[in-house]
């Protein structure tokens, strides 16, 4: 839980209030203006209703240069950010031909597979030439190649489940699977901070949805007891089935799921568990097998394991792993398997090859090195940030570390100042976080060297002083040490 300081909350509210008031003021004049120029809608309702895009027009556009920055290289440890300019007060941004080489603290390139890799890339190109970029067909028609079957076997083996099914997009994996498994009369209990794809899938399923407090097993138990005792709303029939959905690492919080406790509760109350490992698979655990391995949970106790390949594996797509029967059933019913184009063969090859590297099946120990590196990098970076007095949330071992900014004015300030000094960070604001809890998010990669991290820390510390986001006092003697370390370099 994030406890926002009282004064900060007040100033944050004040800032948003001011932005809102000015926005409304401008909207008022725009309306007057529109009224005089007479609308050109010819009797249609406006396609975007006024308040629906108020936030975009009046708040987001002011700082839109901090988001969607185009790059023109692979999203490796360092990448080329394309500079943009605007002639109309940030309303539209135009690309220039100028680029700046920046340290990448934003991409989900946990294991460093985003860039060309000595083992993966040649195999991917070979696959491209053999299978072409697409099959133009769904898995049940002409979209299953030898490669797709190999991939499913490889993934099942990697996550330690009997079988797996893969899709071409992680988002669709969640949003198309939940409607197949759950329906009217079933209950989905979802963590309050679950990803939008899970929310969408749950909504699409028609099941009843209840939310439990983020990562709080005791509240989960409370909700489960209440719901089992109450049964379905109105009729009080017992629930057909209950599934509890959690994520391995919460991407906006950097927190690890309290999986052992949650699994124990689910077992006790006979609820099924659905674990989304989008950010944890490949990134944590001794052999990269995700939170189950890290926290010592037997994968047999997790009924449905989901994950995506867009992060650690540097590819695209998602998987569901579970019992043989479950996967067979999904292959017969899941619309994403029946209708969507099968995953692109070169992307499939990238996943297979990167898993082989992680497991050391490529005949080197690069995989083990990468895993050790990301763990070391993450823990080093997190502890240094904390020592400097930033409010860093999340758990040790997690490569995702949000730094709280709170105030809306600090979002663009932090992002722009860091970029000026060639460090690219991600800032996150509403709608991805609650309005008050804007933050910057650092994603550490195994491909960052110690020098990279030290440079990043220097820049972030300087910008942090400038922007005023060191909400805690720094630890004095440790900072000295850090100062020394920096001098050594």
């Amino acid at each position: 839980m994030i406890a926002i300081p009282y004064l900060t909350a007040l100033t944050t509210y004040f800032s948003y209030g001011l932005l809102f008031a000015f926005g409304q003021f401008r909207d008022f004049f725009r309306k007057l203006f529109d009224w005089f120029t007479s609308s050109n809608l010819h009797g249609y309702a406006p396609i975007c209703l006024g308040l629906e895009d108020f936030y975009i027009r009046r708040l987001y556009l002011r700082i839109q240069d901090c988001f969607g920055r185009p790059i023109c290289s692979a999203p490796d440890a360092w990448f080329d950010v394309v500079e943009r300019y605007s002639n109309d007060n940030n309303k539209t941004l135009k690309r220039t031909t100028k680029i700046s080489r920046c340290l990448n603290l934003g991409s989900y390139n946990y294991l460093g597979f985003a860039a060309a890799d000595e083992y993966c890339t040649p195999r991917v190109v070979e696959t491209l030439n053999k299978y072409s970029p697409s099959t133009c067909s769904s898995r049940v028609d002409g979209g299953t190649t030898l490669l797709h079957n190999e991939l499913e076997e490889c993934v099942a083996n990697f996550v330690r489940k009997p079988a797996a099914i893969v899709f071409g997009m992680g988002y669709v994996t969640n949003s198309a699977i939940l409607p197949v498994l759950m329906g009217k009369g079933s209950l989905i209990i979802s963590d309050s901070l679950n990803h939008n794809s899970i929310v969408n899938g749950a909504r699409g399923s028609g099941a009843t949805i209840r939310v439990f407090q983020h990562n709080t097993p005791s509240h989960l138990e409370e909700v489960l007891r209440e719901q089992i005792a109450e049964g379905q709303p109105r009729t009080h029939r017992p629930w057909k089935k209950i599934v509890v959905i959690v994520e391995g690492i919460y991407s906006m919080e950097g927190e690890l799921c309290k999986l052992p406790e949650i699994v124990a509760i689910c077992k006790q109350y006979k609820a099924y568990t659905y674990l989304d490992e989008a950010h944890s698979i490949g990134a944590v655990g001794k052999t990269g097998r995700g939170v189950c391995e890290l926290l010592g949970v037997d994968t047999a106790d997790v009924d449905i394991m989901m994950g995506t390949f867009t992060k650690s594996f540097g590819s695209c797509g998602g998987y569901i792993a579970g019992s043989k029967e479950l996967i067979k059933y999904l292959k017969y019913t899941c619309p994403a398997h029946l209708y969507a184009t099968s995953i692109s063969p070169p992307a499939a090859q990238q996943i297979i090859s990167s898993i082989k590297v992680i497991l050391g099946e490529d005949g080197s120990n690069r995989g083990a090195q990468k895993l050790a590196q990301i763990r070391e990098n993450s823990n080093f970076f997190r502890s240094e940030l904390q020592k400097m007095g930033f409010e860093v949330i999340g758990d040790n071992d997690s490569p995702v570390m949000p730094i709280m900014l709170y105030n809306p004015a600090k979002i663009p300030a932090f992002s722009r100042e860091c970029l000026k000094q060639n460090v690219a960070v991600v800032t996150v604001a509403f709608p991805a976080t609650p309005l008050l809890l804007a933050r910057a998010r650092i994603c550490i990669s195994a491909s960052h060297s110690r020098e990279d991290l030290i440079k990043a820390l220097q820049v972030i510390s300087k910008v942090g002083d400038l922007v005023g986001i060191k909400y805690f006092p720094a630890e004095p003697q440790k900072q000295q040490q850090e100062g020394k370390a920096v001098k050594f370099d």
Partner: protein
Amino acid sequence: MMDSAVVLNFVNSAIDWVKLVLDAPSARAVVFGFHIGGHLFVEVFLLVVILFLLSQKSYKPPKRPLTNKEIDELCDEWVPEPLIPSLNEDLLHEPPVLESAAGPHTIINGKEVINFASANYLGLIGHQKLLDSCSSSLEKYGVGSCGPRGFYGTIDVHLDCEARIAKFLGTRDSILYSYGLSTMFSAIPAFSKKGDIIVADEGVHWGIQNGLYLSRSTVVYFKHNDMDSLRNTLENITSKYKRVKNLRRYIVVEAIYQNSGQIAPLDEIIKLKEKYRFRVLLDESNSFGVLGISGRGLTEHFGVPADKLDIITAAMGHALATEGGFCTGSARVIDHQRLSSSGYVFSASLPPYLASAAITAIDILEENPNLLTKLKNNIAALWRGLSGITGFTIASNPESPIVYLRLEKSTGSAKDDLRLLENIAERVLKEDSVFVVTSKRSTLDKCRLPLGIRLFVSAGHSVSDLNKASESLKKVAALVLGGHN
């Protein structure tokens, strides 16, 4: 009787008295030109009483919550259903496994077969230029983009690809999605919310159905590709919602229906749309790069400028032989999606090599208009070859690259129909090495159009391929369905 009259009298005089008393001091009070009379005091008093009563809890029998022990028992007693229903053996059809690229000819079980299962309409699978652009992109950018578009997942090729599509179609801007299926189910809820009205064809693809459901709008279906039904539906809705202002109204149609191979009559839809003031969302997944003299899709086919339509979406996993999807339209429509469309905001962007492939595919299409002629001739040739086939009717439009064979006589159950069709498809593959597929339906799919055999014609098929396919289908259909008729 007497009593009540007395009481009434007394009450009346009491009220008069109260009025008098109240009026006396304030009779001449005028605030901002508003006369404050005694009735105002009475009204304010009544208001206070009402508010007071409202604030009181209504009477409820005291509820005794369940004790912990009772809840424990209930939890112990509860038995959930299994996660999935028990599997039915006959459902489990294993699709053939391809051993090479899914081009017009491919290898299954070590044997070369003619492939009618891939929507590779222009025959671009395996095209050298496409492969070259992909491999240089792979070397430059890696495979995945490792981030959503907002967070350094925007790569210059994405922007180039969006501009290329918009330029090709003559629209203002376009937006890329990382998967074809996610395009419609993200785009629809971005523009249509609870209370808005969508009139959709009953034969639309599942991706669209899902988008309609997720938008929580009022959805009304009209009969598949039936313009009279559409007109009636629009008429009904218009009269029903005459008074409601600021209600967004949409017609959702597919250009070529994946579920039937029919082509939507865009000219009539435009007339109706303009008459009833609806906006049109058109899915061009199977017509982009296929219809029109230069492959610009249904709008070109009917000579309608693309900006008459408000939102056009398409999957790129068909004619363009890559993956992903796009939506195109006015700058306002596109910009709105960049922050409001869930599948765009919350998902990693399209792998850059697939965006490069899309750009190259459009280039190839523009440089080789003969691909379209070839495709048209191939469709016509297959139609000619299939004429007189036993037990089937061709349900698709003669210009559609999806040639849809529907059973003349259904067995009465969808399951048996499917088994019959599967049987034919399997025999055609085994006996004559022609790979055709049945249309399959997920249990979630609400589309009720009849199932059939679907052939995806490609510009890459040769005349002999097409002849072989139609001969084989005719032969097997006569053997399997001959007895039925």
